[in-house]
C-alpha cells in the first residue's frame, strides 16, 4: 500500500520536475491559512428575502412564526393540512424541548416515522439552503428518513453566502462535525425521462418554520 502512495507522490513530483517529498512551498501553507475567497453572488433584496425566494424556487414551503408557541400551532396546522395522523418525531434539540406540542414524540427516529422535526444550524441566502449539522441534538438520519422534514430555523441565523456559513461553523464549532448537510428543497430525481419527481429517497416535502423572534 505504502508503495502505491510513494509511487503516486513521486510521479506527481516528477511531473513538476521536483524531487519527491519536497517541503510544501509557502504558497500552499498561505492558501490553507488565509483561505482566499472567490467571486461571490450579489442580489438586490435583503438576505432574508433572497433566502425565502430561493427556498420557494427549490419547492420547499415555509411558515413565518413569531415564537415557539406559534411554531407549535403552525406545525399542527401542517400535519392537519397534509393529513398526517401520526405525531411528529422531534429531534432532541434544546429549542424543541420548549416546543409546546403535547402530541409530539420525543424518541429516537425509526425508518417508519413519516414526519420528523429538526433544527437548522443556519440558512444560506445565496442558495436557499438549510445547513444541518450532525450532532447529539440534531442526528443526520432525521434529514433523510422521513417523508416530511420540518425544520426550525431562527431568522437571525440566516447568513448571506456559503463562505459566511463556513466561517460561522468554524467560529461556533471549531472543527467540522461528521456531516454538514446543505439541504435545498425536498429530495428529487429526474432519472425517468428527465422529468423532475419529488421524493426520490429522502423527504417528499421540506417545510421550514422560520422563527422570527426579536431579531
Amino acid at each position, binding site marked *: 500500500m505504502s508503495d502505491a502512495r510513494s509511487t503516486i507522490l513521486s510521479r*506527481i513530483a516528477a511531473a513538476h520536475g521536483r524531487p519527491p517529498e519536497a517541503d510544501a512551498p509557502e504558497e500552499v501553507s498561505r492558501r490553507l491559512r488565509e483561505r482566499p475567497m472567490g*467571486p461571490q453572488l450579489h442580489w438586490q433584496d435583503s438576505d432574508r428575502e433572497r433566502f425565502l425566494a430561493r427556498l420557494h424556487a427549490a419547492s420547499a414551503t415555509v411558515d413565518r412564526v413569531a415564537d415557539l408557541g406559534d411554531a407549535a400551532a403552525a406545525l399542527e396546522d401542517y400535519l392537519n393540512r397534509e393529513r398526517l395522523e401520526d405525531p411528529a418525531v422531534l429531534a432532541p434539540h434544546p429549542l424543541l424541548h420548549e416546543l409546546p406540542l403535547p402530541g409530539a414524540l420525543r424518541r429516537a427516529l425509526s425508518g417508519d416515522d413519516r414526519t420528523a422535526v429538526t433544527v437548522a444550524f443556519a440558512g444560506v441566502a445565496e442558495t436557499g439552503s438549510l445547513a444541518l449539522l450532525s450532532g447529539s441534538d440534531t442526528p443526520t438520519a432525521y434529514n433523510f428518513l422521513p417523508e416530511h422534514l420540518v425544520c426550525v430555523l431562527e431568522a437571525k441565523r440566516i447568513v448571506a453566502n456559503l463562505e459566511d456559513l463556513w466561517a460561522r461553523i468554524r467560529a461556533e464549532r471549531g472543527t467540522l462535525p461528521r456531516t454538514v448537510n446543505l439541504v435545498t428543497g425536498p429530495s428529487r430525481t429526474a*432519472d425517468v425521462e428527465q422529468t423532475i*419527481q419529488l421524493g*426520490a*429517497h429522502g423527504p417528499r416535502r421540506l417545510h421550514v418554520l422560520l422563527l422570527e423572534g426579536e431579531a
Partner: protein
Amino acid sequence: MKSTAHQFVANARAALADEQLKVALDHAGTGFVDKRRAALAELPEFESLRQAAREIKDHTLAQLDHYLLRFERQVQSAGGQVHWARDSEEAQQIVVRLCREAGAARVAKGKSMVGEEIGINPALEQAGFDVIETDLGEYIIQLADEPPSHIIAPAVHKNRAQIAALFREHHSRYGPERPLDTIPELVDEARQVLRQQFLDADVGITGANFLIADSGSAIIVTNEGNGDLSATLPRSHIVLAGIDKIVPTLEDATVLLRLLARSATGQPFTAYTTVFTGPKRAEDSAGPAQFHVVLVDNGRSEMLAGPFREMLRCIRCGACLNHCPVYGAVGGHAYGWVYPGPMGAVLTPLMLGEGQADDLPNASTLCGRCEQVCPMSIPLPQLLREHRHRQHLRKAEPARARWAIAVWAQLAKRPRLYRKVMGLGTALLARIARGRGRLRSVPLAGAWTASRDLPAPQGPTFLQQWAARRDTDKERP
C-alpha cells in the same frame, strides 16, 4: 468494465439506427441545454467564477502532492483512513479488503464515476458481496446490466416503458397487477425497494465531487439523497475519488459548487450538498464507525506531466456531453466505455491505453461547443487534436486517410499546382452538378454522400475570386 471503445464505428452505426434512443437523446439534449442557459442567464458572475475556478484547479494541480498529503493528514486526524491506489486493480483490492474487514455482506452504492472506471461492482460481486446501486438512474441500468450512458444521467437512454418492464421483471413480489405507468409510480416503487437496501447495508460506497485538503472532508452533491443515506446508515463509509478531486479549502470548493449544478442540470444548487469529515463522533447516534477514502490515480499522475494536464480540471458536470452534436446523435454507449462525449473522447484513450480507443478523438467535428460551455475552460478540441496528432505519429490512422493527407500535403506545398488542381476540381464538380446546386454522389466520397448531398461549387475558387477582386481594386482610383 469491458470496453467496446475500439469498435466505435459499429457502435455508432447501431445507435443511429435505434429510433427509441433518438427520441430519448433529442428530449434530454434540449432539456439540459435550455436549463443550463436559463441558469446562466441569472448568473452575471459566470465568467469571473469560471476564471477563478480555473485558477483554483491550476494552482492545486501544480501543488497536487502537497495538497494530497495535507488531505491525508487531516482525514487521519478526524479519525478516518486514506488508501492509495495506482490503478483499477489496486483500487478494487483495497475496497474488497475494506468490505471484508467490515464483516460486510451487503454494500449500498451511491453514484460514482470513478467506481465505474475501476469496475468496482463486478469486483465486489466476484468477491461475494451483494452490491446495490442506489441512485435511481444507476439502479435502473444495474437491473438492465448496462453501463451508464451519461455521467450525470446514467439511464438517460431509457424510456418509461423500458423502466417499467425492468421493474416488473425484477420486483415480481409486488405482483403483476400493479400500475406502473406514471413516473411517480416508478419512483415510489424504487424508493420502497431501495429504502430496505439502505437499512440492510453494512458498507456504503460513494464517490466525491470534491476533497478538501484543509479539513480532510469529502463533498458529495446529489438530488435524491441516496448518497447521504449510503454514507449515513451503514457502519462503514468508503469514498472513492480520483486524485484530481482535491481542492485546498471549502472556500475553493464553493467557487466550483457555484458552477457545477448550473452547468450540469441547470439547477442553481442541488437538493443535497454534503460535507463529510471523518467517521461518526462519540455524540452521534447515526453515522459510520469507519471512514475510508480511496485515492485513485489510474493514469492521472501521467496526465499531469503532459499536454493533457488541463483535462484534470474536469469537474464531471456533463455540459460538454449535452452540447456535443456527436453525443446527441449516438448517445453514450457508442463510446464503448465509462466516459462518453468530448470529455470521454479525451479521457478514454488515456485510461485504456494506446490503440484501444483511437476512433473516439476522431468522432468530432471540432465545432468547439464543448470548450465554450465548459465551466473549467478545458480546451477539449485542442486535446482531441493532440490525440489525433499522436495517432498520426504512430501511424495509427487508416491507410486511406494517411494516403489522402500525403497527397494533399504534396499539393499544398506547391501553391501554383494546388490552385490549378482546385480550379479544375471545382469546375468538374460544378459540371457534374449541371446547375442543380448539389451532388447526390461524388466519386471516392460515397460514405460522405450516403447520408447527405454535397453542395456543388457555385463559381470560381476563393483564390481566383481574391485575385480578381485585388485586380479590380487596383484599377480603382
